[in-house]
């Protein structure tokens, strides 16, 4: 059985206790998008400000467990200043690490170029969440904020 230290790495607990970019942004210009984990009631609210195709600001509200909240906190630090394409690539890389990216379902169809590109992406702090995969029910906690961010970007683009 995997141990608790596989799941609750020090850096995760640090983000949980001292969440980065916690709060709200004025809407508009920012966009507000809610994400729920229907299983456990975790809730992440992403406030996203996109300017010229770049994430100029992001804030996180909501409530949930250490994994969902620390993942949201790490994500907010990681995506600030990135272009939409860079965010998309990082999201793919992160979900790939959580091994629930579509390509793993599509199996052999995933083209190898994209795969090797993924491997080059620096996940930084986000790496600490790798152990979550050993606790399958918690994967949804870790990916909640990323799914909400993807939705927020879609909503923002649809509106503009």
């Amino acid at each position: 059985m995997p141990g608790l230290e596989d799941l609750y790495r020090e850096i995760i607990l640090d983000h949980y206790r001292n969440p980065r970019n916690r709060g709200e942004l004025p809407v508009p210009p920012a966009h507000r998008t809610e994400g729920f984990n229907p299983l456990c009631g975790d809730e992440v609210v992403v406030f996203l400000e996109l300017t010229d195709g770049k994430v100029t600001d992001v804030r996180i509200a909501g409530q949930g467990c250490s994994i969902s909240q620390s993942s949201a906190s790490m994500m907010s630090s990681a995506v600030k200043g990135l272009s939409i394409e860079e965010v998309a690539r990082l999201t793919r890389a992160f979900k790939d690490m959580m091994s629930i990216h579509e390509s793993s379902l599509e199996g052999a169809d995933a083209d190898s170029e994209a795969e090797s590109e993924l491997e080059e992406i620096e996940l930084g702090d986000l790496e600490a969440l790798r152990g979550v995969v050993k606790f399958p029910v918690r994967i949804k906690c870790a990916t909640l904020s990323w799914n909400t961010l993807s939705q927020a970007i879609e909503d923002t683009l649809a509106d503009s």
Partner: protein
Amino acid sequence: MDHPLDGTVVKKDFPLLGDLRPDGSPLVYLDSASSAQKPQSVLDAMDDLYCTSYANVHRGVYRLGVEATDRYEGARRTVARFIGAPHEREVIFTKNVTEAMNLVARTWGAANLGAGDVVVLSDMEHHANIVPWLMLAESVGIELRWIGLTDDYQLDLSNLDQLVDGAKLVSVTAMSNVLGSITDVRTIADAAHSAGALCMVDAAQWVPHLPTDVVAMDCDFLGFTGHKVLGPTGIGVLWARSEILDAMPAFLGGGEMIRDVRKDGWTVNELPWKFEAGTPPIAEAVGLAAGIEYLETLGMDRVRAHEVDLTAYALDTLTARFGDTLTIHGPSDLSARGGVLSLALDEVHPHDISQVLDQHGVCVRAGHHCAKPLMRELGVGATARASLYVYNDRSDVDALADALAATVEFFTL
């Protein structure tokens, strides 16, 4: 028969509840509010049906079919006895209590509720007793009213007459699956009837834990689910007064529920089969009856006394060890609650509590427990819920307390 029930002894009848899992890890099962474990007698009864007497029911002239039918209908008799139903034909087998509530909303509701008609629910309902009514609110425009909570997590009945005034139905849980609060069903049923409304009871958390008497409750509909009463999944029960069931339109259409079918029409079968379309859950009914018989052997009064005793021990132990750092969302009055302990620690999210507890083999459920409106009233997103049943004993409670202490230690290092 009056000696107290000993959970340590009862536990031995439940194969899954040996001290260790097959991989050698410990197991402390505290999630019976979600689903109960099964005694050997339930497994044997289902096995025996399949090994000796299985065939489809109500179909065969051959003896095997008759035997299977006898066992299936015998199960209905056992259920009727267990809940004090005046007539066997008032006991309808469903898939679970969720289907039982939906059956009432779809058939009685469709025939009797229109725009502006009022259904009264409470703030501590399970989604199974909310969503079917929200669906009717959307489709035909019924109006919902809600019985609120007191400071001690009971239903606030102070304005009950006002709430039920003009209502067509009052539908409430007999015991909250989050708080353990026991509802004064009789008072609510009386108020409903005075106002000309019917009363439905979601007894999913009541029937497993307290003696049930639908006549004494004086309700009109009552539903419960088999897997919480030591039975298998895939079976539930709807009981209702026969004159109401007779007047209700049928639910699903197909075999079993008809008397005659022609190319241009059909006529409905009599109760209870009117509401049992298709091949029913035969072995599941037999398993449910065996679970009920097991509880009858223990005695439901002793079951209740055991749970009150164990709940008292749990509340005392947890309060002594954790004081104000641990919130237990539920009534303090033992006579008004069951063995459901919804826990919240100051520093640790319920999801994380249950993760660390699992590391110690302690199974509790974390989340909103399918009662999101209640969670919003409580102002919490989730709780970690430990729930007690016949096979739990003080050592289980101690294991919970130890694991909680380890949780606090892990997260406050």
